[in-house]
């Protein structure tokens, strides 16, 4: 007994308080999805969906059943169902909106091709006018993101929400956050040693909400956030879309949050075995592109000089590699030099060396299916495919290089993936980085709880 998989592609809208699903699965000739999440920047999803239009049903004003479908006013949800012994689990792989659609017809074949992006693209389009709150708001960085995207109002101060499309609902769509780990307890304003978990929202410079998140909020951790899944909330006329983002603070390591263990482990090797995912292709490289040994950090408002953290040992061996953040929102009334240093040294101590690590692996659902034969393996497989449990998770890759006599295991973290699916199979390429640099030591964990190897959060 092994698992079988199937894609489900749906267009979602809300009509009179009810979610309306248009199923495009049988029309889908192919799809591609690209998802990535970097440190200090909001992650992105984009892709393409090719639909069969041989019956002309999709063509606007073409007289077909979907001639009036509002392509730009729907959320497209991509799921993979994995069925084992009659029990089916579903992974919410991705959700996106249509940014462009074209109808190609060569006289023989007629297709509709959608260009897709995650809905947070609207946070990059919507201008935020410069705002100055009368008093600072100290809060965790994810809550500050929500204030910027969903709007804020208190004591006469207000920030206007990003104008997401409603996708036919009567109520405004909104952003929600799923946390992947826990903040430490931080007073407000924060002590110097507690920087990186909270921020100070007081002024917003002109720009988009996404500019503010990418240049000021997430670099203050630094933290990670990326589109995860879509759901609806409310009832009746207030039913609305919730665009869920997954947030991981500067520890980078997932923890148990609210009783749910968010830490996941995926194991890959060349041939696969029970619960172990087979690799078709692997690329192992030196991760020199990730090196950071000089960091310049200045707070918004520029209190005092910018702090420049230099790791001279690393610089002597690898040359100078800089990162520069000019507008972090440190949670202090007048940010101290020590607080800035806390952020700057995070970069120059965590990414100061080069290691040889697997950076890309490719597999297919068809190759994986024979190795999933228990419900727990199916759960792990479902997590691997999902939007919230794949990125920034621990992955262990074991390879025997061609010509070598012994295998080598690399501890990695998944930070991106490319999915290319056709009706016959699905190919997935995972982008990996070193877990030693991109996780923090997790107590009692056999994989990343190793003293003198893994780093402090």
């Amino acid at each position, binding site marked *: 007994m092994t698992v079988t998989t199937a894609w489900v592609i749906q267009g979602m809208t809300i009509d009179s308080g009810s979610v309306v699903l248009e199923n495009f699965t049988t029309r889908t000739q192919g799809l591609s999805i690209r998802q990535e999440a970097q440190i200090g920047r909001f992650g992105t999803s984009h892709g393409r969906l090719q639909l069969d239009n041989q019956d002309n049903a999709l063509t606007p004003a073409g007289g077909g059943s979907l001639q009036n479908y509002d392509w730009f006013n729907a959320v497209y949800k991509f799921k993979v169902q994995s069925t084992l012994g009659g029990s089916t689990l579903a992974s919410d792989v991705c959700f996106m909106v249509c940014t462009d659609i074209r109808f190609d017809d060569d006289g023989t074949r007629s297709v509709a091709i959608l260009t897709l992006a995650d809905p947070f693209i609207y946070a990059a389009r919507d201008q935020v006018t410069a705002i100055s709150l009368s008093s600072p708001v100290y809060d965790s960085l994810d809550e500050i993101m929500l204030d910027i995207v969903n709007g804020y109002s208190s004591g006469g101060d207000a920030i206007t929400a990003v104008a997401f499309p409603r996708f036919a609902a009567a109520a405004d769509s909104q952003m929600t956050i799923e946390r992947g*780990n*826990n903040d*430490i*307890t*931080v*007073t407000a304003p924060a*002590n110097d*040693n*507690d920087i*990186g978990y909270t921020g100070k929202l007081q002024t917003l410079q002109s720009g988009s909400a996404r500019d503010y998140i990418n240049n000021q909020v997430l670099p203050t951790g630094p933290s990670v956030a990326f589109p995860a899944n879509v759901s609806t909330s409310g009832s009746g006329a207030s039913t609305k879309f919730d665009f869920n983002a997954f947030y991981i603070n500067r*520890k980078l*390591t997932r*923890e*148990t949050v609210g009783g749910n*263990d968010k*830490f996941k482990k995926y194991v890959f090797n060349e041939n696969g075995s029970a619960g172990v995912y087979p690799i078709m292709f692997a690329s192992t490289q030196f991760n020199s592109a990730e090196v950071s040994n000089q960091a310049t950090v200045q707070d918004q408002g520029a209190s005092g000089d910018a702090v420049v953290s230099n790791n001279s040992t690393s610089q002597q061996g690898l040359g100078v590699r800089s990162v520069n953040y000019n507008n972090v929102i440190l949670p202090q009334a007048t940010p101290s030099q020590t607080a800035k240093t806390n952020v700057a040294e995070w970069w120059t101590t965590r990414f100061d060396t080069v290691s040889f690590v697997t950076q890309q692996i490719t597999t297919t659902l068809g190759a994986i299916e024979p190795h999933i034969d228990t419900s727990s393996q199916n759960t792990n497989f479902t997590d691997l495919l999902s939007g919230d449990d794949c990125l920034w998770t621990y992955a262990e890759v074991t390879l025997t290089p061609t010509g070598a006599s012994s295998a080598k295991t690399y501890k990695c973290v998944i930070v991106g993936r490319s999915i290319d699916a056709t009706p016959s199979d699905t190919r997935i390429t995972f982008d990996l980085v070193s877990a030693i640099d991109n996780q*923090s*030591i*997790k*107590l*009692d*964990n056999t994989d990343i709880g190793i003293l003198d190897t893994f780093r*402090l*959060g």
Partner: protein
Amino acid sequence: MTNPFDFSSGAVLTAAQLNSIGAWSSYTPSGGNWSSVVTVDEAAYVEVNKIVIAKFKITLSGTPTSGMGNFSITQPVAEKGGDTWAGSAGGGYIHDSSTSYSYPVQSFISGTDIFLRSTPDGAADANVDYNSPIVFASGDEFRFFICYEAA
């Protein structure tokens, strides 16, 4: 941040947590036999695993009476039971604001409270109460610390 203990298995260890080991946390003592006549100027403690050290500066805002019993104040962290005498150590002094004299005291634990004991000149040691080692009045001060094992 506050004292990071206890660490939980599976939690991620942070530099901020390690740097806060030994950090003092303020607390507000509750109860105590003299609570109606004391002003707590400072009460703070540090906990490192099972080791607890607490420090206090207290000023009398009124005059204690014989009916109040011995001076006492609540513990910041519950003490390991059974170590009432041998398991705690500490000391400090009482300052008589009317004479500007100071008197050494030893701190100890009994039950859920911290008490003080003194040795007046030419007399047996005794718990600090309304008239031992001095006749207390508003403005007199207590400054002391105690260390003990947490439960």
